[in-house]
């Protein structure tokens, strides 16, 4: 059997979706997930209760949505509050199973280790994708209702701006999560993996600009937040007449996705070598 045939049969035999389904079912019941959903929904509640802010905004309701949702994506939905929760959710993925002694049971089942990890990652993507879609769609509906928009505004926002916004939130949160998954695969305790993940994520954001002599944290290019801004500005007009985040979106996308692949490869390597006693 050739290497390609072996690979194909390996993919067809995979029980990733089984594990992913189980992971999604389990996570939906946890307090961490409900808390994350609540935290992510807070901007919707705030805009629901706050008075209209649009005024004579450039670009009408879609333009206002781009600026408001863009600001919320970069400063809230992918910022520290969401990052902390995502780091701890992802840190629980492998190390948490071992703490609860359920990893042993999982490994006795006729499922490969790679399927377990990849299934859990897929499950994670599904429920983060669900949260992202829910909050961005609700946010747009609240905004349209509050500012008195019509069906044209709704279709324009839905077709042009929702998917790019979801994509940026997803890639931002998944980058933080893949780092945390890698640590979770290599550490015994989920708390240690979560704290190390936080230290790396926030340490880079805070000490990176100092080490590289940047003028301020917000203008430092080599941070996740800045590169997400570069990506988002490709789809959204964040400020009229100027670019807030100068950079190459193709480079930002390549770096973020390749970083994710490398983190997950290391996670797989550490998980294969993990001995469960």
């Amino acid at each position, binding site marked *: 059997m050739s290497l390609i045939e072996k690979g194909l049969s390996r993919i067809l035999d995979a029980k990733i979706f089984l594990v992913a389904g189980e992971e999604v079912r389990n996570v939906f019941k946890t307090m961490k997930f409900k808390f994350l959903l609540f935290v992510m929904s807070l901007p919707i509640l705030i805009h629901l209760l706050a008075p209209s802010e649009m005024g004579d905004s450039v670009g009408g309701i879609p333009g206002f949505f781009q600026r408001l949702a863009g600001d919320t994506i970069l400063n809230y939905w992918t910022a520290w509050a969401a990052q902390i929760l995502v780091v701890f959710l992802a840190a629980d993925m492998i190390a948490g199973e071992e703490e609860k002694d359920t990893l042993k049971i999982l490994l006795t089942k006729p499922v490969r280790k790679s399927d377990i990890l990849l299934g859990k990652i897929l499950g994670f993507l599904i429920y983060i994708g669900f949260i992202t879609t829910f909050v961005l769609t609700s946010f747009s509906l609240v905004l349209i209702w509050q500012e008195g928009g019509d069906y044209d505004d709704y279709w324009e926002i839905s077709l042009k701006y929702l998917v790019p916004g979801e994509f940026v939130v997803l890639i931002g949160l998944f980058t933080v999560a893949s780092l945390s998954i890698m640590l979770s695969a290599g550490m015994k305790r989920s708390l240690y993996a979560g704290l190390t993940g936080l230290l790396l994520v926030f340490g880079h954001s805070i000490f990176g600009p100092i080490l590289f002599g940047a003028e301020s944290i917000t203008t430092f290019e*080599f941070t996740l937040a800045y590169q997400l801004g570069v990506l988002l500005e490709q789809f959204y007009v964040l400020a009229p007449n100027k670019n807030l985040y100068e950079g190459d979106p193709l480079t930002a996308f390549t770096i973020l996705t390749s970083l994710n692949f490398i983190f997950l490869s290391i996670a797989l390597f550490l998980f294969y070598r993990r001995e469960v006693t």
Partner: protein
Amino acid sequence: MRLLLFNILFIFIILNSVCINDSHSTVGLSDVEIQKNNNGDTFFFEGIPYPLLLSPSNSTTFPFNLKKGVPYAVLLGGEYISNLHDLDLRIFDENLTQIESVDSSKGKMTQIPSFVPEYNGTYYFVIDFNPNGDGIAICSLLIATLLENTSKSFYLGANGNSSSYFCYAINVKSHPKEKMKISLSVEQNLAAEIRLYPFTLVNDQKKFIPTDSNRGGSFQYSKATKKGETLSCSIELDQRNNDPVFDEWILVTTHLLYGEGEATLNISYEEIPEDWERWAIHGVVFILSLVIFLVFAIFGEKYIR
């Protein structure tokens, strides 16, 4: 083994960071002597006279002191210029002999992309409102030095008004695959703004507004300094993508925000790599990391113990 893996990861992150900061060949800057812009005469030189109201059959004259052999962009424009207006431009030398004339049709913007004086001295720029036109135009003239790579220092704010422009014109088509990098440094007691105005003859709607910012502006890009700050911005002049914003000319103006002092403007160009080069480099990085991941996912379990 874990230490080795983290080292590899660290090197990968560093390489990626270098990739983000991918530097291209920077063209050297030419030195230009410091020019203080602290009196009325030099303010209007390389600048914009206050706009005047013109109606059909009226004309107005702006004298300018120009330097021999220096290429200037001469642009006629104004606020609320519509298709009703028919504005023509004529240039006279100091003997009042007409040396250049542009008769544009109704509503078209008038410009002389490159005017090179033959002597040091005064030239008279006459704006004629053609009798074929209609309405009242608020129009003015802009004389800008055509810029290539430059570094220039000048004084802003001495006149106590907000219209302290320094204007430069850049022909985008002369830099078809380049990125223009602009940086502005200001002294501790000065804050200023860079503004980029696009205009073109192709689209009649694009016009510059040679007045102060209080009248509103049609600039497409602006970035402001704080006191004593250096800011930089870059604009791609890549005509391969038919950029709809900066498609023929860019006016770079420095605009006083508050204070008074010396500002230094640097303009340089970097080559933009070909599209296929960018896609190839990024594609290789992406595919390489994807292959590593797939190999680990599909075959890793069998070989890693």
